[in-house]
């Protein structure tokens, strides 16, 4: 069932926007992925550091709306300790759920977050 208020952000999303986690750059990142949403101009870059097979650090840069900020901020926590294979299985729905859900008109931000993660994984396998 759709939430009663499918327009505004929930408290979890607002907390992420007020204080997004892991903003920054990993200079010697093992993986780096970017993505944009041409319709609204959002731009995101994700940096990942691996030790062995598992992610030990994740950082982000964002020029984007509240939803993409929250989705990426949360994603930097989700990816820690996971292997590349496990990261590949993270869905947009899981990203949205990790922030308590996003309004319907903002779901594309979770899709962009997943695409950025996928792009980062591709960069790792290519290097």
């Amino acid at each position: 069932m759709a939430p009663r208020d499918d327009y505004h952000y929930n408290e979890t999303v607002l907390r992420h926007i007020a204080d997004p986690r892991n903003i920054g750059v990993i200079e010697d990142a093992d993986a780096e992925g970017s993505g944009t949403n041409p319709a609204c101009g959002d731009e995101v870059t994700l940096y990942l550091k691996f030790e062995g097979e598992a992610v030990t650090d994740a950082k982000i840069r964002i020029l984007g709306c509240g939803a993409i900020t929250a989705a990426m901020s949360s994603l930097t926590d989700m990816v820690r300790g996971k292997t590349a294979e496990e990261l590949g299985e993270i869905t947009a729905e899981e990203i949205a759920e990790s922030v308590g859900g996003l309004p319907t008109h903002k779901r594309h931000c979770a899709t962009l977050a997943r695409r950025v993660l996928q792009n980062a994984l591709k960069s790792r396998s290519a290097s």
Partner: protein
Amino acid sequence: MNTIYMDHNATTPMRPEVLAAMHPYLGEKFGNPNSIHRYGRETRIAIENARDHAAALIGAAESDEIFFTSGGTESDNWALRGVISAASGKSRIVTTAIEHEAVLATCQALEAEGAEVTYVKPDRKGRVSAEDVAAAIRPDTRIVSVMWGNNEVGTVQPIHEIGAICREHGILFHTDAVQALGKVEVDVERAGVSLLSATGHKINAAKGAGFLYVKKGTKLDPFMTGGGQEQKLRSGTENVAGIVALGEACRIAKEEGPQSARNVAALRDRLENEICEHVPDVLINGDTDHRLPGTSNLGFIGAEGETLLIRLDLEGIAVSTGAACSSGSPEPSHVLLAMDLPQETVQGSLRFSLGYGNSDADIDRLLEVLPEAVSKVREMAPRLKSTKT
């Protein structure tokens, strides 16, 4: 937390006098104004007084040119649909690309029904030229619809010039004056306006009551049919309390409007000047020579409007953004896009709209919070796009 409201173009707080005026009509004065008995007579008088105040505010020749509606959206719908429905043969509408959605979506619906619509583009300051409107007029043009003042950037349109052109061509002229009413001088007779939309909640009255001014002799079909209220043109039992509030707000606006506008414009100018002084890379969106007194739309280059809005909201300051992803639509503001502003200006735009209740202390507080908020949001931006790190 002390909160500061700087979103008066979205809606306004009710003034205590207005609330006091409407209050009895939510309680003991509950009569249906169409009833013959004393209960009905009492509310009928209240509605007719409100009509007089609305007519006086806009310079209408007669009070019975005011038809109460549920608000701006209904008034816009009725004006356009009512004129097209009453006209025979092929219909063409001339409007602008920066109208409120109530006009744009109605025009699109009428297009689907066979009308032809021309959307005149504004300049980069959001102003439409009267010449461009004139050039778009064809022999089968039934109505020209141009908003008096724009809700997003505040640009005031050349209404008197467009009114003169319409009069010359014998074409009806509708204006959505929802944002302009009470803020700039609105005189329908001088401006050559045939139909004017207005709503109470933008002028410190209640939501749910507005009006459509219809100049005598205008051919207009009813939009709401039923019991024949409002001279058989707008059926439905009147929203008495809302209409009383609207009337009282019109009375106050007539009395205090010019002075309030000067005060609000001074506050807005201070806000704008000091933001531009304390925050680098800020652009003013709109026409500073032709602008509603309380509106300031600013583009914070290299930042994102919604994120800024939420940071301000968490500090208790309420503003708005017309930028991408802000209003249930993934597309950026149609107004800023029609002005051909660069993407980064559109993306980083915030609208501050001041009004009743705002003070210098509010501007002081905003200036304590905003520079740091902008700087933090800019610091988050990806390296290549960022202009400030």
